[in-house]
């Protein structure tokens, strides 16, 4: 029996490791270890004001900061009976689309492209593929700019609050974003072609289940109040535990999730697989150009799915801004009540994110947060096992096996900070 280790998973967000135990050509065990410390965010919230919880939760993750903020706002507003005017709703959608662009382009250009070109990382890529990388950085910067305009800061902006915004962005700022979005479309089309045409090895192909938010009105999108599963089932947001069925394992400070007793995948690939036929415009053209049934079996297609989503966002943003500037600013909407429960559901860049709260006498009483990476971990391990078995059979060297396993983990774009706050609050 021998052990193969990746002590520190690189080009991902946070601290994780991979261990596989091998006996001859048999894989005994594959583990993705989440060694980042548990930060206990759910316990931090207890007894605090909902607005203070909203200051805290974006800090779970620097990359999905606005997804956490948005999910948290949705949950709190459900608890407190707040219905916001359309302008606020659309601005929240806008900032969320900005985060998608930023996070996806960070992942595609800085973290994944080096694998495609055979380089160890972005700094090395900078010498040979500077132009390529610069295009990616343009897209990333644009995503950041949207977040800055709407949320007040690129990371952890405090401007989106319960019931509205501290300050509304100006029409001038918004129109500028809209024209930038239009200009960036050629950049991403060209990247979709690059990723879409790249060869993806077949040995990984195996069926799995896909889970995503079910946006209302049969639209593509990143928020909603129900959950859609690839088997066709739809669950109400409040029934999220029927989908996630979480448990604690000994090699991770992140909880694990199973649906129907089996692992599942969430993220851009799940959204494109479940909702791809709802796309329109150029995004639909690219979806039809590259999507095929193998996307339902192989997580590496997640990279191309993310690129298609960037295109979708660039088109959608122009539409959102046209609607937003036609609407009036409003004052922050005050809560109608002090008690209640509610689950906020959004798609973070890496998949479905749940914030579920109970508020009692205007204070946080209970908090349960389930992040996409935590849900993906079991499926990542399942695909890594399949890869390891295949590569051992082919007598690949240990280094190559580990490199391939890292590529699989990386395709999921794991967000370890998000996953490792995960714990259940047990009250005395």
């Amino acid at each position, binding site marked *: 029996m021998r052990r193969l280790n990746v002590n*520190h998973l*690189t*080009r991902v*967000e*946070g*601290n994780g490791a991979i261990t596989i135990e091998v006996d001859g050509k048999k894989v005994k065990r594959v583990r993705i*270890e*989440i*060694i*980042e*410390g*548990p*930060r*206990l965010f759910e*316990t*931090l919230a207890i*007894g*605090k004001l909902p607005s*203070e919880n909203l*200051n*805290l939760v974006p*800090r*779970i*993750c*620097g*990359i999905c*900061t606005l997804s956490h903020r948005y999910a948290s706002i949705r949950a709190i507003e459900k608890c407190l009976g707040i219905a916001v005017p359309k302008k606020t709703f659309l601005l929240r959608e806008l900032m969320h689309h900005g985060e998608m662009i930023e996070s996806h382009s*960070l992942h595609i250009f800085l973290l994944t492209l*080096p694998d495609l070109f055979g380089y*160890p*990382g*972005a*700094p*090395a890529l*900078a010498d040979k593929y500077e132009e390529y990388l*610069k295009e990616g*950085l343009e897209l*990333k*910067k644009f995503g*950041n700019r949207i977040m800055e305009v709407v949320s*007040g*800061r*690129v*990371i*952890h*902006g*405090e*401007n989106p609050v319960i019931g509205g*915004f*501290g*300050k509304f962005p100006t029409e001038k700022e918004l129109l500028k974003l809209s024209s930038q979005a239009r200009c960036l479309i050629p950049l991403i089309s060209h990247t979709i072609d690059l990723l879409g045409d790249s060869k993806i090895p077949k040995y990984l192909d195996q069926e799995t289940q896909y889970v995503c938010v079910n946006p209302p009105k049969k639209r593509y999108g990143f928020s909603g109040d129900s959950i859609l599963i690839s088997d066709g089932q739809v669950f109400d947001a409040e029934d999220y535990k029927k989908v996630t069925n979480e448990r604690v394992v*000994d*090699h991770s*400070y992140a909880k694990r999730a199973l649906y129907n007793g089996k692992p599942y995948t969430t993220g851009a690939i799940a959204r494109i697989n479940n909702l791809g036929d709802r796309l329109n415009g150029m995004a639909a053209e690219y979806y039809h150009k590259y999507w095929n049934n193998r996307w339902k079996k192989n997580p590496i297609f997640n990279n191309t799915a993310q690129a298609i989503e960037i295109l979708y966002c660039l088109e959608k943003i122009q539409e959102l801004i046209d609607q937003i500037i036609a609407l009036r600013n409003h004052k922050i909407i005050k809560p109608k009540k002090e008690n209640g429960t509610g689950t906020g559901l959004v798609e973070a860049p890496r998949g479905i994110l749940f914030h579920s709260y109970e508020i009692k006498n205007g204070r946080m009483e209970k908090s349960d947060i389930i992040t996409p990476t935590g849900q993906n971990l079991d499926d990542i391990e399942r695909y890594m096992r399949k890869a390891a078995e295949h590569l051992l059979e082919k007598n690949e060297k240990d280094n190559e096996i580990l490199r391939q396993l*890292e590529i699989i983990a990386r395709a999921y774009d794991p967000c370890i*900070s998000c996953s490792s706050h995960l*714990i*259940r*609050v*047990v009250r005395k």
Partner: protein
Amino acid sequence: MIEEVIMAKERLKIGIYGLTGCAGDQLTILNCEDELFDFFRATEICSFPMAKSDNLEENLDIAFIEGSVSTEEDLRLLKDIRERTKMVIAIGNCSCYGGPQSGLLLDKNWRKRIKQIYGDIKFDIPPPRNHKPINAYVNVNSLIPGCPIDKGEFLRAISRLINGDLPIPINYPVCVECKYNENECLLNKNIMCLGPVINAGCNSICVNHNLPCVGCRGPVIEAAITSEFELLLKKGLSSDDIRNRAMLFAGAPMAQMLKKLMETKK
């Protein structure tokens, strides 16, 4: 220390690391889209696990460290980096002060709480520790606070370091910047703002958006904590609420100040 760094004839050897945190500070570095290529070329990035795979864990001129010490592994890595690095610079609130996760530092039942949360499971990975800033364990040469750090402040620091000088810390409260921005004082409107006791450097971003300072840049040097506490009490907040608010982000140094304050009140 700095002399040794200046004397280096070659490009500065740099490491960028994350302990337990949200990666927002490392991401802020990657968010310097317009300056990133210059930064990669002006320095030698020996280790940056979030951005590259060919990391060399060797002697460094400067290490930027994000995140709090929250596991035994964090502590081991921190001590290892300290030993082989001339200048250690803490970046972000978690590394400088302990971060939001250290908000329960005043709570003595930390171990009990962990057990309540996870039950009796025995972890097969490095055990957790109570969250502390890196200067609780090693000597830290400079702090770049913020949640996240400010891009401009980071770039100014790196330019100064490349040119052989130290980063300049900001030693005045958010109120100074807030006045420059001609915002109306939120405390006058009975909105509970922490600006008077918190480090500036954010250009009073929250107050510019009509929102109170939540303290993400940590306590300013010689913070007038007693008067802020009394002012907030007068505005009708309970002392528990003030403690909650102040401990959202102000970590270990705030915990110490509040402890002292509570002792003198007794």
